[in-house]
């Protein structure tokens, strides 16, 4: 599956950029979709990458969960469709 923004990838593709925002491994954080309620680790979401960052979608209903923007002054995350994001269990 490809789109004008490139192929669909997994949440793991954003591990590096999200490490600028979160102090934990974001790919193991749990995200709840505000639209359909699907709840799973970020690694199992679908991601589109572009030069500006990445768009994270729910694997079940495709609602946009997070938008990650790679800004020169620091990475920014907006979470229009995430009910919540929970850190992975403490090691």
């Amino acid at each position, binding site marked *: *599956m*490809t789109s004008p923004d*490139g*192929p*669909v*990838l*997994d*949440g*793991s*593709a954003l*591990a*590096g*950029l999200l*490490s*600028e925002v979160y102090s934990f*491994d974001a*790919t*193991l954080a749990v995200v709840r979709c505000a639209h359909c309620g699907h709840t799973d*680790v970020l*690694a*199992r979401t679908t991601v589109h*990458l572009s030069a500006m960052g990445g768009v994270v979608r729910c694997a079940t209903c495709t609602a946009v969960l997070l938008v990650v923007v790679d800004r020169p002054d*620091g990475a920014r995350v907006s979470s229009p469709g995430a009910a919540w994001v929970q850190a*992975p269990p403490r090691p």
Partner: protein
Amino acid sequence: MTWQTGWHVATVVGARPLTDTARELTLAVPGFGGALPGQHVDVRLTAPDGYQATRAYSLATAGVDERVDLVVDEVPDGEVSPYLTHDARPGDQVEVRGPLGGYFVWHDDDPAPVLLVAGGSGVVPFLAMLRARRLSGRRAPFRLVCSVRGPAGAIGRDEIDSPDPGLDVRWVYTREVPPGWPTSPARITPDDLAAPGFGPAEGTDVFVCGPTRFVETAAELLTGLGHPSARVRTERFGGA
């Protein structure tokens, strides 16, 4: 103040062609450590005018601190891979961030059978898992299914085909088969993925890595064979 999280300076110390289009690069990276098999790094290049491009690459070896082994397959017209496959020379410097991602990881104390399904250069994180398994001396049963266009593009074939107790390998050639191969070129089928000891009943952990379309096809075949989707971990890569 510029905030640069987690970037390490990496110096190329080795480069070795693996196929016509893929090269293994070894980087010396002071401060880098603790990588687990299956993890990846971000590699960042900076042009003389300041333009930066970042791409993710799987580690081909885990567990060796201050060193990063990458296998990079060229994506024509890519921004990063042509430099890494053609131009990078010992002494050159790039930047590396990682190790990244705790999801697509095999833990060497996990005794469950493991089914690895690779499309093309998707085999790279599996090289790290095979190497870690050999080093650990543990004998979790492994089956590796590698789908490649032809024998010339098969990354790591000599290493993968070396005898390794408890490792079962199946090659799938989609365009061109080696001389004397018993079957014609064909895409991956359920028969390639089903093997005694590596089914859903045995609690098999399944990892699938490759280009997006390959991963989606393989994952569908695997869930069709009864593997619960929660036990099928995927890592899709795009171009660049």
